[in-house]
């Protein structure tokens, strides 16, 4: 099993891309073969991920493990440097799992206009980009993976999306690209100042430059990451992208892509520029709480189920950002827990919202109702996931929010406790509003009476949860419960790494 130490990370990252290359040589008419090869690729990557879980030393989760560091582009000192610690491991595993489940789901339903092969190739490329982002320890490598993600998602939305797909796809692409330009400028500035693209080296040697310089660099990184998260007020691409994207696209977007932004803060911006982080934390915290309340209020105004869930993401990512802004153990651990929980729960919510559309051919909340009576299993899943999303203890949604709020009560050194306690109260109001819109949505979609046959879409196909859907969803449903009952599942891994990140603050 020693070979996993050297090759595990690379396998988990590049096996999907390899699968994409293999798929190029399969005739597109052979749907089954295409699906089989695509699914096997994601499965093999997941197996690599599981082997990594066995090799990972949880006692040293604060250190980078399974590290590989070789020369790559010598002219600019860019290196192929990858590895995992307790922060990246859960996110990598999440990405591997969710993509595999998406592949299973595609057996049940391929969005219009078909073209399974193209869809699979794009999804596999996307997976390589996502996985790579979470394992890269070199800024240039990170940037490549980061940008690699954009292209497949652009086409997923632009080709397989809803009526306004072109607008949504272009908006998603350009907005994110706009942010990443500033991020790249930040990376280059770091390189010019410190002479390295290596995240670990930059972190250990620190940036020996004026506070203004550090803040400017942080601002660049902030723009790149904040747009990706997305933080208020940079979030407006998200509802459009989510609403138009096909089911699998929405799931991957919510479950994994958004995490790349928050991960960037924890992995790059904060540990490398700790002083600037202290300057920016209050701003991040304020924007985060605005996002929580603003997102919840927008949810209350939605009539489209998918758009509602998209706005709920804005609020939930607000909790993650609030946790990060606290710069203490509870908050940052809560943030990472929140990322994983949001990946599981909102991923599941988008699966459900997509499936509602595939069944009813509408997502208008006003045209739905009584789903629990007509589709008891499906309705139960929606209830379960919504309840998890509103932060019920015992399910995954609780711990991230609770720890972020606890972190705000007593924020890290150098931060104003009064401000953060106000933010905590704001977050608390947000949890009430969140409960409000989710229960209201359940009331309108799940409860009451089912619309009569005459009022349904002519192509509506009202069927309860199908076997393949069970396979694709069961792991998420189980993990939502497991992480809620036994949060150590995540926190036991993240804590060491978070302590390491926060060491930059003398904590």
């Amino acid at each position, binding site marked *: 099993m020693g070979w996993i130490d050297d090759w595990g990370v690379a396998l988990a990252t590049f096996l999907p891309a390899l699968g994409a290359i293999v798929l190029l040589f399969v005739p597109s008419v052979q749907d089954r073969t295409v699906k089989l090869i695509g699914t096997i690729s994601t499965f093999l990557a997941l197996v690599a991920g599981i082997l990594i879980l066995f090799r990972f030393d949880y006692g040293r989760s604060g250190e980078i493990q399974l590290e590989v560091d070789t020369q790559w582009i010598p002219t600019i000192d860019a290196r192929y440097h990858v590895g995992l610690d307790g922060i990246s491991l859960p996110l990598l595993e999440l990405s591997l799992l969710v993509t595999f489940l998406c592949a299973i789901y595609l057996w049940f339903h391929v969005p219009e206009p078909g073209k399974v092969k*193209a869809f699979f190739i794009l999804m596999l490329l996307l997976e390589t980009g996502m996985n790579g982002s979470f394992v890269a320890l070199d800024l240039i490598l990170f940037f490549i993976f980061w*940008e690699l993600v954009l292209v497949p998602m652009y086409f997923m939305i632009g080709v397989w999306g809803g009526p306004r797909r072109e607008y949504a796809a272009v908006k998603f692409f350009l907005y994110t690209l706009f942010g990443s330009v500033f991020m790249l400028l930040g990376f280059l500035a770091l390189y010019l100042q410190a002479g390295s693209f290596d995240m670990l080296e930059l972190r250990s040697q620190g940036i020996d430059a004026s506070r203004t310089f550090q803040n400017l660099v942080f601002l660049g990184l902030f723009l790149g990451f904040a747009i990706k998260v997305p933080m208020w*007020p940079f979030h407006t691409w998200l509802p459009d992208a989510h609403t138009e994207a096909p089911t699998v696209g929405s799931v991957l977007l919510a479950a994994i892509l958004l995490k790349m932004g928050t991960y960037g803060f924890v992995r790059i911006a904060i540990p490398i520029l700790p002083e600037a982080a202290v300057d920016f934390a209050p701003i991040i915290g304020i924007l985060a709480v605005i996002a929580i309340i603003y997102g919840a209020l927008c949810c209350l105004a939605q009539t489209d189920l998918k758009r509602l869930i998209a706005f709920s993401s804005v609020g939930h990512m607000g909790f993650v950002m609030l946790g990060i802004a606290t710069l203490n*153990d509870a908050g940052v651990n809560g943030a990472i827990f929140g990322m994983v929980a949001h990946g599981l729960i909102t991923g599941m919510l988008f699966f459900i919202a997509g499936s509602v559309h595939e069944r009813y051919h509408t997502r208008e909340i006003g045209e739905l109702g009584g789903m629990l009576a007509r589709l008891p299993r499906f309705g139960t899943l929606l209830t379960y996931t919504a309840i998890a999303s509103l932060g019920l203890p015992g399910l995954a949604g609780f711990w991230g929010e609770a720890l972020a*709020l*606890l972190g705000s009560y007593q924020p890290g050194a150098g931060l104003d406790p009064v401000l953060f306690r106000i933010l905590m109260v704001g977050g*608390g109001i947000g949890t009430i509003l969140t409960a*409000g819109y989710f229960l209201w949505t359940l009331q309108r979609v799940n*409860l*009451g009476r089912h619309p009569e046959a005459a009022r349904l879409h002519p192509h509506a196909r009202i069927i309860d949860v199908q076997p393949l859907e069970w396979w694709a969803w069961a792991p998420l449903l189980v993990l939502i419960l497991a992480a809620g009952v036994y949060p150590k599942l995540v926190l036991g891994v993240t804590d060491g790494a978070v302590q390491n990140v926060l060491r930059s603050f003398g904590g």
Partner: protein
Amino acid sequence: MVNVQQALIFAQEHGETDTAETVLDPGLIGGFVWLVPLLPILSFFVILFFGKRMRDRGHAVGILSIGAGLLISLVSFLELAGGRGTIERSWTWFELGAGDHPLHLEFGMNLDFLTAVMFVVVCTISLLVQIYSVGYMHDDSRYTIFYAMLSLFTGSMLFMVIANSLLQLFVGWELVGVCSYFLIGHYWEEKENSSAAIKAFITNRVGDVSLLFGIWALFTLSGTFNINDINHMAQEGDLGGPLAVVAALLLFGGVVSKSAQFPLYVWLPDAMAGPTPVSALIHAATMVVAGVYLVARMFVFFEHAGGALNVVALIAAITMLLAAVLAIVQDDIKRVLAYSTVSQLGYMVAALGVGAYTAGVFHLFTHAFFKACLFLGAGSVIHAVHSNNLSDMGGLRRYMPHTFRTFIIASLGLAGIFPLAGFFSKDEIIGGALRSASEGDQAVAWVVFGSAIITAFLTAFYMARACIKAFWGEYRGHGTPHESPGSMVTPLWILAVGTLTVGFLGIPVIGPFQDWITVPGHEHHGFSTFYNLVLPVGSVLVALLGIYLGYLIFYRERWRYDILAGPFAWAYRFVENKYFLDDLYLNGIVNPTKGAIARATYWSNQHILDGAVNKVAAGTVGTAQVTYDVLDQQIVDYAVNGAAGITGLTGGILKYIQTGNVQRYAAILFGAVVIFVVLLVLL
């Protein structure tokens, strides 16, 4: 026995052993009381996944698990009474951070008399409710899920009661809330019912957030979530200052919503939308007493947190009076009982507020019996007449002899007539308030005392009204009412017998209850030593007066007086509209948030934030156009070719996708990435 030994060793290693109260002799069964919450929780999963396949549709699993829980509770209670010590055991849930402020979170169990009394109450009521529901819910289409939820509801409450850490308590607390949401909204075909469920959950969420913040504040102050440690620290005077007061008030914020105190009691009367057995469970055992339990559990801390207890007592005094007045004007029999519960919860909380700790817990205990009996009795009546309204009842004593007798016993118990259960507990509260008032010379205790006396009168009055309207006179409903089946009547009689007897456990001086529930951190006995004959005789007279007045007005109909025509019409309308509190919340907060504020926010999102983005995009395109027309066309002509090339490439990709020629598309994609990398290298 090996297991017990191991448990002992485990407890010694992991338990908090620094307090004198922790005696490590769990007895035969005490070490296993964690099974009491665990069994119903497991039963929830069993019923949920397999219930529909069972011949009985799942109720046997629920009843057996809670029956086993009751057995364990009783044995462990007897062991405690036999002199075994209290037990605390805990396991690590997770740990975060290092250095000065590690976050160490445990879950565990805390077994003392308070836990044991609560266990007996919760298990007894839940068992009877589940037996009763076999008959009551027989024709329900969602019978199985109903039983699953009853199990989880009970299990969550027990999980909360056994908690030795505040965060565990919070988890149980919220789970109780969500179960109540499902059970209140059981008949969700009607929007009214699901709205009531949402109202219950959201109102409780408000308090839950307050409670959570209180827990955070307390953790920051004390560095621990452990309840016994916090109480111990408070006892030693280590937790003081304004932050302790704030923490105590925040905790109490949770109590205000969960235990339906003013001004957040509005959800409880609406919670009547659920099936009647659920109402019995909510009102007697598994939900609303959670807040009372929290204050009792954290009593030492509350006592040492500045004037926090005065606030507690004052709110409770207001609550008991306001709710009792509301109970008089209700036509729905369940709403009469609901406001009665709010009022009685006021008694319990007020008792704790004035330091009459034992009396408060004792009232929780006795109230569970007669209130569960009243609700199940009301359910039996509703089952027979198919209406909740008193105006559709009348003369039922002839048709439903068992329901009638048990209902009257429970009503007398609630009214506090000697020698029924409510008499003993209520009297202790009034006595405790008087003692506190005269000893401590505290204005708040006088308020509680006065409010308690008036409320005792009102309680007797509104119960007399309800009983007379339901059971005397002529039947005003449809069809012929009939007595309910044995599975429903038996629990009624068990509870009625309980109402007749459990009060004697708390007879002053000789009753054992005061030896069980002693005021933590105090030397003296739980019950008031300030005891003479004036008080009990006086309070019974007050209650009898209330019943007599009810008799005169509603039976003899002495005064036929149209209050709406009189000078107090405004007061009547004020009460009839529930002091406009519901309207204030609905029209002042909920509807604007859901409506105008949400729409305005979304409008700003679409037109301001997103508008700006679109403007920037349009501006960029416009600038590009100008650049192209002016700069490019006229100055750098040769670059046009390049631009054309890029446009062609983009168009090409889209064309390939649309024609389905994916190989070429993918090749281009890879090519693009390669070009990108090369560009980077050249940079």
